[in-house]
């Protein structure tokens, strides 16, 4: 034996083992419990919905309120054009990805706060990340709804991406992760397109609409333009509970209601 000071251990199954050991990691597989199985995560796009102003936003919020009695909804909001602008200025100044992520998250915080003001009379409040951790169940019990910042709280700790410097985890990723951790019933991303097509329908007359697709097949297709952050596909592939995401056109009245009712509107991406 050597004279090294011994660590004081707490007895557990993982005691003394390296948490980097592949066998140990594989041995931790076990079922996960859904914490909020009735939750629906609804993401309002920044560029696609919010930046269009009241003509796009107000009908959607009316639809959210109309569904308040039937469905528990937590509403994530994306950042939009102001994030693009600050990314541009920040990149020009030479700022790193983590700094850009922190800056961009403030733009979606503004949008989320505006949405919460418009829903305030129905009891929806805007919850920052620490309050999502602690207060969400109480807020849902009180009003069956709340609003959060779509961008995840990675801030300075955002990953440097494989290519370039744009923060890879945007509001699609953040909304997906909220759905996954709570074991949500559905994750609905509201955009300004009907869903996925085999090609850009604006330029290619042969473009076909895709009502439902698996994540592996979608990655194989290597579509040029994807109306969802690519990192969401990677997250979906590792899903424990939230095994699908639905992309829906939020500019068309009734789509959100249909999606909440479980109808096959838009495109469903399956894990």
């Amino acid at each position, binding site marked *: 034996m050597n004279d090294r*000071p011994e*660590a*004081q251990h*707490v007895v*557990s*199954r*993982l*005691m*003394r083992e*390296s*948490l*980097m*050991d592949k*066998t140990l*990691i*594989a*041995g*931790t*597989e*076990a*079922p996960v*419990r859904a914490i909020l199985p009735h939750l629906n995560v609804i993401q309002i796009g920044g*560029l696609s919905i919010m*930046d*269009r*102003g009241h003509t796009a936003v107000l009908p959607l919020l009316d639809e959210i309120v109309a569904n308040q009695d039937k469905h528990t909804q937590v509403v994530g909001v994306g950042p939009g*054009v102001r994030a*693009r602008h600050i*990314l*541009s*200025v920040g*990149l*020009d100044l*030479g700022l*790193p990805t*983590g*700094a850009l992520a922190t800056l961009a998250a403030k733009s979606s915080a503004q949008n989320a706060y505006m949405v919460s003001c418009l829903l305030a009379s129905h009891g929806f409040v805007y919850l920052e*990340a*620490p309050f999502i*951790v602690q207060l969400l169940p109480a807020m849902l019990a009180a009003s069956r709804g709340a609003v959060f910042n779509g961008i995840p*709280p990675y801030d*300075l*700790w*955002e*990953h*440097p*991406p*494989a*290519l*370039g*410097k*744009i923060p890879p985890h945007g509001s699609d990723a*953040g909304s997906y*992760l*909220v759905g*996954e951790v709570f*074991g949500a019933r559905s994750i609905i991303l509201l955009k300004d397109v009907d869903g996925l097509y085999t090609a850009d329908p604006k330029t290619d007359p042969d473009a076909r609409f895709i009502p439902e697709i698996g994540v592996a097949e979608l990655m194989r297709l290597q579509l040029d*333009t*994807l109306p969802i952050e690519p990192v969401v596909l990677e997250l979906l592939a*590792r899903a424990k509970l939230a095994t699908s995401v639905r992309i829906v056109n939020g500019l068309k009245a009734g789509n959100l209601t249909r999606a909440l009712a479980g109808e096959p509107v838009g495109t469903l991406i399956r894990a």
Partner: protein
Amino acid sequence: MPEDVSDAVLSELGRKLVAGSLSDAAIQRATAATPDYAILPWVNVVKIGGQSIMDRGRSAVGPVVDEIVANLKRHKMILGTGAGTRARHVYSLAIDLGLPIGVLTVLGTAVAWQNAQMLQYLLAQHGIAFLEPESFPSLPHYLMERGAVICQGMPPYKLWEANPSVGRIPPQRTDTGCFLIAEVFGARKMIYVKDEDGLYTADPKKDVRAAHIPRISVQELLARDLDDLVVERAVLELMLTARNIKEIQFVNGLKPGQLTAALDGEPVGTIIFNADGTGA
């Protein structure tokens, strides 16, 4: 249509960013050509291991604290703490209760936080402050005034931690959190203080034939696909895309002088470097 931002104030890249898709490869490539400004190029990020140092108590932590104090006037340090054995217990319990990865991350963060608090009590008389992620804008001030600050090492992902491909342990823990602090600030060094002299061909705690590796590229280390590693796998993957941090160093905190040597730029312990000098 969305309201436009005036083109006049934007660069060509800015116009593309406002109009285009952020997942467009051409736009991403264009952002890679922008300058890299190092925010704190003189700071050293030093991670103090949880199980490897903190859990051993005074006999291990005392000498490390002494060495940190001796270096306060010579090197600026962000001191991040690991979690350790209480995290293993709470992960084990939470997995048994069926709780998801994000909840495990919240729980593990509390353990790293406890270790950071204890370290801060030991360094308090030297004027060293503990900062939460929300207080990081004050960090340069403390570094200039006192030479070091303490933070807990976990990234602040909370419930937003992503699932690993296998198992239920949060893949991005304190090694990763400290690495990302070093990366975002463009730090001078990323030093991990653990209880081994660095990397070995096998686990020296279990295999007497294990040979020490003084220097290895991250590419080679990943290609070896070892069953066990000295560092979280996420750190190795992030090294491939990091723009600022091109090498990380592992020293033995149980051997006095190794941390100082690493801070002075000596090749003690093990250095893992990115063989692709161009980066992402």
